[in-house]
């Protein structure tokens, strides 16, 4: 790895910009994500910035159990995030569809549609847990190459299942 690559990897870890997307969430996790940016938790220490456009972001934070209507939007937004990118699924809903399991309006969980790197469980998860998830995603991001190779749904699922 040459010097420029090492520099960009380091900078990528120190500057994760988030884009927040709601795929039918009850708003509980969304509130906790915003709470993690407040003065009490101060995510900006990690270089985190909440961006308005997915094109500016590095990490896609998705809440909610993935309704049928939101699947197309999730895929579009995922494509609009520039490589290298990471996805954090916030709350129990995107991980397992939670209490809405077997609902006919759902097309979840999230890792059927896009590769998910970090799951933050909880209903809703605490802001500290969300920050830990974002920090882990930033570590993953630093190791990822700019072409975005290996970012398929199957590869991401296999990676997540290998973790304890």
């Amino acid at each position, binding site marked *: 790895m040459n010097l420029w690559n090492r*520099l*960009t990897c*380091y*900078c*990528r870890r*120190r*500057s994760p*910009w988030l884009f927040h997307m709601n795929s039918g969430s009850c708003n509980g996790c969304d509130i906790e994500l915003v709470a993690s940016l407040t*003065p009490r938790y*101060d995510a*900006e*220490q990690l*270089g985190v910035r*909440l*961006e*308005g*456009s997915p*094109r*500016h972001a*590095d990490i896609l934070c998705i809440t909610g159990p993935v309704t049928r209507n939101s699947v197309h939007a999730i895929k579009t937004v995922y*494509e*609009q*995030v*520039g*490589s*290298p990118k990471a996805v954090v699924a916030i709350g129990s809903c995107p991980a397992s569809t939670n209490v809405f399991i077997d609902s006919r309006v759902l097309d979840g969980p999230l890792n059927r549609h896009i590769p998910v790197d970090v799951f933050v469980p909880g209903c809703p998860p605490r802001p500290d847990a969300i920050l830990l998830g974002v920090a882990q995603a930033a570590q993953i991001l630093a190791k990822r190459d*700019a*072409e*975005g190779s290996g970012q398929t749904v199957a590869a991401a699922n296999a990676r997540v299942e290998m973790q304890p």
Partner: protein
Amino acid sequence: MNLTVALARMLIFPGLLFAVPAAWLFLWIERKAVALMQQRIGPPFMQPFFDFIKLLGKTTPARSGMSGLLMKAWPLIAVSAAAGAVGLLPVLPTSGGFQGDLILLLALMEVPSICVIAAGFSSRSIFAEIGSAREAVLTVSYNVVFLLAIVSIAAAQHTFRLEALAELPSTPLRWLGVIAIIVCLPAKLHINPFSLPNAEQEIYSGPMIEYAGPELAMWELSHGLEWVAATGLVATLAVPHFPAWWLDALLFIACSFGVVLLLSVLAAATARLAVDTTARFYWQCTLLFAVLAISSTLLMRLRS
């Protein structure tokens, strides 16, 4: 002034080698001041540098339905104009050679705003278009006051040359003009209470919404260079001239630093104003002030 000195001025101080780190420093001070006022710790010192390098290393996702070349050109034009404006600042004394005047400096400082407007409209996003329209309204509002203040300073001192302006002793009228310029700076730099064009909670990122990767990095850099040029202009006009060049440079940096701190604290302490309130503020309140400054200047010139 020979060629090497001119090149050194353009490339080292106050040109690119000074301006780019200064731009990052000012962006950091802005974010850190807001964080401290909210009792947070805030971003680490190197944060703007990390952001810039990270954005350079990212790929740009394909966008549909717009011409790529023009959109790629706007951020580059903005950066080069802002860097040129910083290079023109007469911090170090020179003799002969190319000397920019105030009019060229103002023109170069205005180019990034025009690029932002054009970029927003050429990206064809509805949010970017709203942001561009707001930026256009803002430009029309503050520029009347800004230009009147500059004209009053130049008329009071009988010169448009930057070198001469930096060397002449300051008068009360000049201070009036400097205050008018400082009132315009929050609007020029898009910070609170005049952060209308890039209002995150309303129109996402405004004109920048379709930009990604290296192009976005260029926009960040041009914003930082605008900070350096704008605060540098105030420092040039406000700081008295000393015979020792190092004292001049030191005072220039200290004064720019003070202006950045003042503006950041203002940004942290205020909320965003609506577009009609902003326009009314500049057209009704400060225009009166600027007209007063220029009419007193003209009266003084007639008497003398």
